[in-house]
């Protein structure tokens, strides 16, 4: 029986998988990846800035928050790139507007990932082409062919799990000489794969240690799907709760731990498979440069994006750093956006599917994909 993998690619090629992690709430890029050598940073954040001695060295200018320590080694191994002062053109500083615009990929119908999955050449989708670990479908996948939302593998079941039903379907679809017959068998195969995953105990490879939070759980199940070669092309996992207006440390610190632990475990667990997997971490906007009176930060503009795996040339902090002088700051005092998020995503999609028409994915925008691959 053909596996979904061979069916989808037609030639048995290893499908590439894109994993989108969305940090909802507006993650403070200046606290995740701090500009240690920019005096403006310390001037504006006398109480909450990341200290030069505590930050983990990246490239001599930027420092990584120590709570992201698991990512430090990945950065220096060249598998993680950071893009600073990244974001969208949306200036509303509204969570809803900014997420909406970013996930739609501009003022456009549908989500950018949905459009990409529709518009890429050889538009054939399998039962597990696109998977969301969470409760709802993110807008980025709006319009995608058959995206599956699951919180666990239990959400991918054939009603009743009756063996006689699957046996009958297998007979009928096995006798059907068409793409639909194959699709039926592929689906039965995927059900079996997931059932095996559900029943088997799982030990992450290479001693990878995931957290116990929802984010890590999502990534762990994702890693299992990727290893099981079920034809996964795009996955979305949210990490929510970055809206740090008050007492930023108390709010952000556990989030950073979750992010770092989850991503590092995922990468360690997948090992060599990471060559075909790209993870991008994004947020709707960064936060104001200046701290507020409540040890927090308010909605800003430029933030930081993470790109991991997929053969990227990492170990670099990309993007033009505009500096934090008053005359550079935007509006109420925000880091301006110098790299549009589309140019990060476009670079990944281009690698994912070289013949894809990215003008359809990101309409009405002149793309200049970031040189993530060297």
């Amino acid at each position: 029986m053909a596996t979904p993998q061979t069916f989808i690619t037609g030639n048995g090629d290893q499908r590439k998988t894109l994993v989108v992690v969305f940090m909802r709430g507006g993650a403070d890029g200046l606290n995740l990846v701090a500009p240690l050598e920019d005096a403006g940073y310390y001037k504006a954040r006398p109480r909450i800035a990341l200290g030069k001695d505590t930050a983990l060295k990246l490239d001599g200018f930027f420092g990584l928050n120590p709570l992201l320590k698991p990512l430090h080694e990945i950065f220096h191994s060249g598998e993680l790139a950071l893009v600073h002062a990244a974001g969208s053109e949306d200036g509303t500083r509204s969570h809803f507007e900014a997420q909406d615009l970013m996930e739609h990929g501009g003022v456009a119908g549908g989500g950018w990932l949905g459009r990409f999955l529709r518009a890429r050449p050889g538009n054939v989708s399998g039962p597990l082409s696109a998977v969301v670990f969470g409760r709802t479908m993110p807008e980025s996948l709006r319009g995608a062919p058959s995206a599956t939302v699951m919180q666990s593998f239990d959400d991918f079941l054939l009603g009743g799990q009756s063996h006689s039903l699957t046996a009958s379907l297998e007979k009928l679809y096995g006798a059907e000489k068409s793409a639909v017959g194959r699709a039926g068998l592929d689906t039965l195969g995927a059900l079996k794969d997931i059932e095996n995953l559900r029943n088997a105990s799982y030990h992450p490879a290479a001693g990878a240690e995931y957290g116990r939070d929802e984010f890590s759980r999502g990534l762990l199940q994702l890693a299992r799907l990727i290893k099981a070669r079920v034809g996964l092309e795009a996955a979305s996992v949210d990490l929510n709760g970055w809206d740090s207006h008050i007492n930023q440390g108390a709010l952000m610190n556990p989030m950073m731990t979750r992010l770092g632990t989850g991503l590092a475990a995922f990468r360690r667990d997948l090992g060599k498979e990471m060559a075909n997997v790209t993870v991008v971490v994004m947020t709707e906007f960064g936060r104001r440069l200046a701290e507020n009176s409540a040890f927090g930060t308010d909605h800003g503009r430029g933030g930081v994006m993470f790109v991991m795996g997929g053969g990227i040339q990492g170990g670099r902090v990309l993007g033009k750093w505009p500096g934090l002088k008053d005359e550079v700051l935007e509006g109420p005092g925000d880091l301006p956006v110098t790299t549009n998020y589309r140019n990060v995503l476009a670079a990944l999609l281009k690698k994912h599917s070289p013949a894809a028409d990215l003008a359809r994915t990101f309409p009405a925008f002149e793309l200049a994909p970031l040189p993530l691959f060297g």
Partner: protein
Amino acid sequence: MNSSRRKFLQTGATTAALAATAGCGVDWRNPVRGFVAAAGFDSQPFQPPTAEAIDPVAHVLNRLSFGARPGDYQRVRKLGATPEEAARAYVEEQLQPEKLDDSLADRIVRRFDALDEPAAEMFEYKERFLLNQMVKAAVLRAVYSERQLYEVMVGFWTDHFNIDPGKGDCRWLKASDDRAVVRKFALGDCGLSEPVTILDRLQTFWAGESSAPKPAFNFPAMLRASALSPAMLWYLDGRSNRKANPAEKPNENYARELLELHTLGVHAGYQQKDVMEVARCLTGWTVRGKRQFGKAMVEFNQRLHDDGPKTVLGQTIPAGLGAGDLDRVLNIVALHPATAKHIATKLCRRFISDEPSGAAVATVADEFIASSGDIRATLRKLFATGDFLNARGNKFKRPFHFIVSALRATRAGTDADQQLISYLERMGHVPFHYPTPDGYPEEPGPWLGTMLWRWNFAVNLGENKIKGTRVDLKSLTAHAGGEEKLMAHLLGRRATKEERAAYHDSGAGPALCLASPAFQWC
């Protein structure tokens, strides 16, 4: 409309419907039971197909409708002495929807009367409310309307002139586009009229139509309605296509899709230069936003129009025509041979096969030209081809078609609850949710990942586990005259030995039939 009436409409729809339909035998307090009763669930025994292969009657029911209901085959078969004759009679019946009584479907969708408001009034509603109403109304019409070919064509044009109501004011305006462009012109003159407001009159004035032309319902008229549809002006950025000064560059979005998707088709020989020239012709047409006076009003602003001479597809459009450029452009493309071929190909793909013969496409395209884009005449020609008659059971149902055909075949009562819609969501085929201007794809490839959700739908439908949707398979089986005949009804032909075995072995009975490969085709 005053606010109390609006509030009443949003919260008291069920009560209103109850009052409006008192005495019609529809129990609106329990919509599902009401629909079941209204749909004549407890009706007479019926005679399913008896042939070994899909016969012409089962074929036309497959293709012109969203699937045969119990009794449909028997009724249509009696329309002619032979199955071929009966099939032809059904085609003719469906080509004249205005002659078919559709009061049941009308009653059922009456509760969505927000959708009947003039475009500008739509802004009074929450966008999600409108979208939900549109989706439910589309499902319920497909399930319950007698004008099946008309509803099929509504789906066809919804894809052809696709607008995703996720963009800008389309959130409010798509509902009026659905009515004033898609449903109004879907199958020629069906006697559907638009509410005419003072603003509509003003709009006519703006458009420079001093003496109103005789209304036409052909493709050119539909194209014009779409070009000036407030939602389309939003969706494809026509509203911001302007040239107020020499430095300003027109927005080419609509111009490109007009040529590539709506008329000529990609690779039809037009050049980038043509796209740019069409965009120039359409500069100045805009639509007022939701915060402006006269919102949703389409108007032509001469100041923003590039009034120089243009050349489109080799034809010269002289300087100084102003708003008149629009009709010059549409006249060049609406009945262009490439447009005829493009539309004919799409119709043949929908009704004949994914790879229709060149001869069939040519026949249909010729009729499109000869009839000046008369949609009925064009379809009549298509249905008369041997290709159509002989291409049976070879079209893969898209998820919407699959769901609706299963509901129709089982004579389900449904109120299109969110739980039903969630199956369409999982399969990526909710009406009005396609992101790009090209509309949901017609070919099977993009839909092959939907098998699990089809099977789950079939199983859960059979077990009455979908909220707001009810079937009575026991009584359906009895009315069909037993299991063998029920299978013939569901499959449009006698079941094979293997299918009969699966029906019994699976323990799922009719649900297995709906989940089987044969039911995925039409």
